[in-house]
């Protein structure tokens, strides 16, 4: 029980503190003390174009990255669930991205994505294609970040899906085969529905973590070029620590937190109703 209390304190104290700050006009460099100004910061956020663009970017980045990871992760799990020589080695190797230090991985991708000396463009040129600007281009930076996030987290989805596959009951498959179903029908009508509860956990975790992704973007682009990869988390970070607008930054922290919480709760509720209920 004391442990639960510790957890509650650890979570609630910073949250309540941030909530309170978000209702003040606290700017670090103002000599006068902060004053309570009510929901003014939230109203500003709702009309702040940079914040809204950041929100849109966050949602798009998360949607695309998690979507790709879910599909690839399931395919990868189906592959790794087959028997073939070297399977255990392949599985072990797939574990590595999940545990590798994100900042270090980000740096390696920075090196690989360099437009002039990077291996990615060397590869493109070898195939007779023009090089891309990757994280240095306004149009290519978000897809580049999707690549990095997908590289690092598809194996996580795979792992969870694999765990789901390993506990599948055999009966539905046997009856399906008796009915003469083909492989695709079996996958679509049996495997996938049986996997849903497991995939749900992967989806939930991936959504939470990608919505608040920070280290990778900070290390690779710091939100640039311009603001082309500035997500809510990155924007509120500069608001707080470069513009010193702690009050306003806090309102965005609360907004981001509420957004993620809402998505998580909706998902959990949906799951209770449709999958288990």
């Amino acid at each position: 029980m004391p442990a639960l209390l510790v957890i509650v304190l650890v979570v609630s104290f910073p949250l309540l503190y941030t909530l309170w700050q978000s209702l003040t006009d606290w700017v670090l460099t103002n000599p006068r003390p902060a004053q309570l100004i009510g929901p003014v910061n939230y109203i500003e956020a709702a009309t702040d174009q940079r914040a809204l663009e950041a929100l849109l970017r966050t949602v798009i980045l998360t949607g695309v990255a998690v979507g790709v990871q879910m599909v690839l992760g399931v395919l990868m799990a189906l592959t790794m669930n087959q028997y073939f020589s070297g399977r255990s080695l392949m599985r072990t190797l797939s574990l590595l991205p999940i545990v590798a230090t994100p900042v270090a991985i980000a740096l390696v991708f920075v090196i690989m994505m360099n437009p002039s000396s990077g291996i990615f463009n060397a590869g493109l040129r070898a195939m007779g294609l023009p090089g891309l600007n990757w994280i240095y281009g306004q149009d290519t930076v978000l897809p580049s970040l999707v690549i990095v996030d997908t590289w690092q987290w598809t194996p996580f989805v795979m792992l969870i899906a694999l765990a789901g596959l390993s506990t599948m009951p055999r009966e539905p498959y046997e009856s399906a085969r008796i009915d003469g179903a083909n492989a695709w029908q079996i996958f679509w009508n049996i495997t996938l529905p049986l996997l849903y509860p497991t995939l749900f956990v992967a989806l939930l975790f991936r959504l939470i973590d990608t919505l608040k992704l920070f280290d990778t973007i900070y290390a690779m682009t710091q939100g640039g070029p311009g603001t082309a990869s500035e997500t809510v988390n990155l924007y509120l970070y500069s608001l707080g620590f470069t513009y010193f607008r702690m009050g306003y930054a806090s309102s965005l922290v609360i907004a981001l937190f509420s957004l993620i919480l809402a998505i998580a709760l909706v998902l959990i509720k949906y799951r209770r109703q449709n999958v288990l209920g």
Partner: protein
Amino acid sequence: MKKMLFGVVVPLTVGLALTSLALAQRFSWQQRSGETVSVLVVKSPWSDYLQGRVGEFEKLTGMRVNLSVLPEQQSRQKLAIDFAAGGVTTDVFDTSLHVEKARFLKAGWYEDLTPYLANRTLTNPNFRYSDFFASAKEVVKSKDGQIVAMPYKVDVQILYYRKDLFEEKNIKVPTTMAQLEAAAKALHNPPRIYGYAARGLKNANVYTVAFPMQYYKATFVDSNSRATLDSANAIKALTWYTNALKTYAPPGVVSFNWSEVLGQFQQGTLAMFNDGIGFATQLEDATRSKVAGKVGYAILPGRLAPTTANGLAISPRAKNKEAAYLFLQWATSAEFDKGLVEASITAPRASAWNTASNQPLKTIPWAQTYFDALKIGKPAFPEISAVTELRDVFGIAIVQTLGGADPTQAAKSANAQLQTILDTTEK
């Protein structure tokens, strides 16, 4: 008894008073022996040099120095959090005066150093404040005469060019924008040589766009805190800068900070760029630079030299300000600055350049350019609180224009955003 007491006590007190008076007038490095100063500085050639010598200071004073060397951004954050929470973990901090002075002054984050300088117990008679360059003394002063920091670096923006390539094609050092472009065009031969580059990265790029801004007589903000980013001249400057980068710079320039520009030049793939003179040392370092000995240093076309300055400041909430002041004094002393020049690093004291054993004006290839530029230099940024916001907003406009947006539109939108910010920050 009473008499005796009188006889002993009075001379004793008088004697003590006299000694302390004598002591009070004598400066001693050891006066704060045993204390600790926490110092936060931004990583640079200057901080490398400091790091190498900080042990000497500890020996000299009997004090301990807790030195943090961090990249610029992180050091800012650290300072911000420190002040946000009441501020006592840092005693001495590195301040970019061209960015932070107005804002930090308003916030009360600078200890006024005037009384310290006047205090003869605290200030070494050899310190000679008058020895600093006029521009350095100017930049550390507030409007009401406070001294907010001790200057350790005054930087000027210059044109770096490849002497060998210029000679090969018989090109003269440009003195107008047209000549600069002509030179870039003549030398541009990608991917072997790119004609011209400068910073493209948001925020950082506003420092180098200050050159075309000054050339076309444009300002960022007028004297009444009105944003002027969409003036005809400012749009001219923005257009020139982005066109030049789009035409002559290597791919990915939109994310180049000084280090990437410098890296290209060091690799020998760049003919010209404009940036602070402080990077010259790295270009002349043959272990890192393929072009050492081939670099020309020139005043920018239009005889311009956007300046920036850095200083060491004391936090008003520091626990041991006197000890902190001793550190400041040592790290900006004539002797320290002389050592800097001997290590080919700029120093803001006139004496350092005269007394250095390496005869800088004869042996350091960029020294003369530095002195000439100092005489004509104008601040790169306006003295407002919102310099960071200005740099972000206008920096984004540059990035957008590089990405194909219309310069007038980008400037207009940046101007509106900046005005909204200025309305709250410059009150």
